[in-house]
């Protein structure tokens, strides 16, 4: 049983590490500010969820598990808030995303 938990937790930790790594690669490869943010959100959400779940499996049923779960919840609440602050500040200070605003997703003609 302990072995199964260990294997599962290592799988989660490795997958989380993979997402963090590809988030970093994406932040370097993407061409501009707004697209870089998408890559960073890989690290923010998938990376932090998988890594913290992996650590929780290592901690077992104890108080640290509850604290780790709380850390996960707070990360998932504050991460997108910080991202919004960053994106909104960029938008309001006049950095326009290249793509035109479209209401219809499929349509190609910019308004």
């Amino acid at each position: 049983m302990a072995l199964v938990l260990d294997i599962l937790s290592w799988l989660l930790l490795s997958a989380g590490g993979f997402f963090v790594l590809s988030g970093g690669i994406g932040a370097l490869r993407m061409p501009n500010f707004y697209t870089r943010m998408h890559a960073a959100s890989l690290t923010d959400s998938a990376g932090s969820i998988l890594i913290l779940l992996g650590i929780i499996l290592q901690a077992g049923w104890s108080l640290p598990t509850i604290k780790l779960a709380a850390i996960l919840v707070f990360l998932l609440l504050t991460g997108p808030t910080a991202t919004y602050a960053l994106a909104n500040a960029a938008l309001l200070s006049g950095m326009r995303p290249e793509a035109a605003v479209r209401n219809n997703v499929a349509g190609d003609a910019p308004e």
Partner: protein
Amino acid sequence: MRRSVRSALLLTLLLVIAWLFWSGIYKPLLLWLGALSCVLSVYLAYRVGFFDRPTGLHVLPRLPRYWLWLVGEIGRSSIDVCRIVLHPRLPIDPRVVELRAAPQGPVGQVILSNAITLAPGTVTLDLHDGNLLVHCLTPSSAQSLTSGPGNRLSAELTTG
């Protein structure tokens, strides 16, 4: 008035539970200090007007189902974005989509826009008067945003 008293009691209960879990040391002195800090926190929340508006505490029991859907969404779109990032040609086609938020209150709209930002491939740029401006990495992420159930689920989470 009744509603604000109820949410004050609920907030106190949540703070007490959180304090008991954080501390792990249950000596009389620390228990008193914990009770004092819980009461102080509720008083400060009252002073900054937390109970004047709808607090959003009523969504708590419905959150697990919403989170389950959100985790599935994050997993799916993480794999999509990962594939794009590691693709040799980097096949992105970013676009900005306007979306009318289905949730009426500010709490539901914030939950919706945070959920959109959490899912990789979509970032909320602006939320104003219930109109969301969302930056999407690919047409398919824009498609799943506008036709997916996220907007409706966020509205169901917070209404009633």
